[in-house]
């Protein structure tokens, strides 16, 4: 009987030990996942695309093939504009004097035109993937 009590007590202690060991492990895992997410966010190169006077600056964006890129679109006009490209499969509105972010790629080498839907005659550009 004693042996049984001793065994039960040991088992409980083992469980508690495991619990204490698991808690930091879970915390570490969560931190690791968070770090990976932050690293992934930070590792994606960012380029800026300015909208001013209903034109894109620069009008030509060069990015490497096979690389995902974060494009920060900054609208310096007081009116909204929409970045649109069927070739890039992207459509994103930017409010007047506001900014937004889109992700493009990884892409094959080639040219991918884009335009502003509100001012399509002037707001034009192209992504060149090399």
């Amino acid at each position, binding site marked *: 009987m004693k042996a049984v009590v001793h065994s039960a007590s040991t088992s409980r202690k083992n469980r508690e030990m495991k619990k204490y060991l698991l808690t930091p492990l879970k915390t570490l895992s969560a931190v690791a996942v968070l770090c990976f*997410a932050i*690293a992934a966010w930070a*590792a994606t190169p960012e380029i800026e695309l300015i909208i001013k006077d209903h034109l894109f600056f620069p009008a030509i964006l060069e990015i490497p093939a096979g690389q995902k890129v974060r494009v920060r679109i900054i609208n310096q006009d007081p009116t*909204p504009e929409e970045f649109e490209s*069927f070739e890039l*499969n992207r*459509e994103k*509105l930017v409010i007047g004097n506001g900014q937004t972010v889109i*992700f493009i790629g990884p892409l094959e080498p080639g040219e991918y035109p884009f335009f502003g839907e*509100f001012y399509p005659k002037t707001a034009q550009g192209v992504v060149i993937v090399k």
Partner: protein
Amino acid sequence: MIESNYCSCRWLSGLVFKAFMSVFVGLSLLSQALADGSAVDKVYHPYVDALESEIEFRSLFQESSSGGKDFKQLHQVSFGRSFGQALFGEVYLVGERSRSGQFELEAFEFEVKWQLTEQGEYSADWGLLFEYEQEFNDDVQEFTTGILVEKEFGRFSGTANLLLIQEWGSAIKDEFETAVAMQARYRYSRAFEPGVELYAGQDSAGIGPVMMGSVSLGVRKTLRWEAGVIFGLGSDSPDNSFRFLLEYEF
């Protein structure tokens, strides 16, 4: 080192996507025994365009050989608009006409779509769909929760909707159902994108070719269209379902 972490995260994201799709396929097979009525509807994409409104009209025509379900027409008209960058709300009126009956308004619906991730940020793009439906003539209510996922493969896009439907009311058996809708499409041009769609619900499943596209009618004015023929799978499914959608975005 950063690149290594980046790869790990992409690997994790890819793993989540693959696990989700495995469950998805399993549930799509299971759902044939669970969900009510026709499963053919439309495939939702997990994206919201800010400052956009739309008027949509969609129709479904079903035909069956003897022993199958009745010939049926389902028509829906809706108005929707976006709220901020990530939410899109839509109100529907649903009408139905069977072979033996007159056309009549059946139900109204409220629907909210929530874009969860930025397009292209992760290995797949995610969104949620919530839909409440109330019939006019019977005490039948329905609440749908859906997971929307889309992934790009170059010019190909694959989209999946996994729907959990709760039905209740005095005129219907209280129950949970599931339904699945999947689409693979090739972005050939803005005006023409061919694809294939698969639907599965209770007593009905189907697969068939679809075509879709959009035409610009001016600044922030677009006419979007979809059409498809879904061939029934199994003896309980309608032989053919023809679906059409016309959407004016502004």
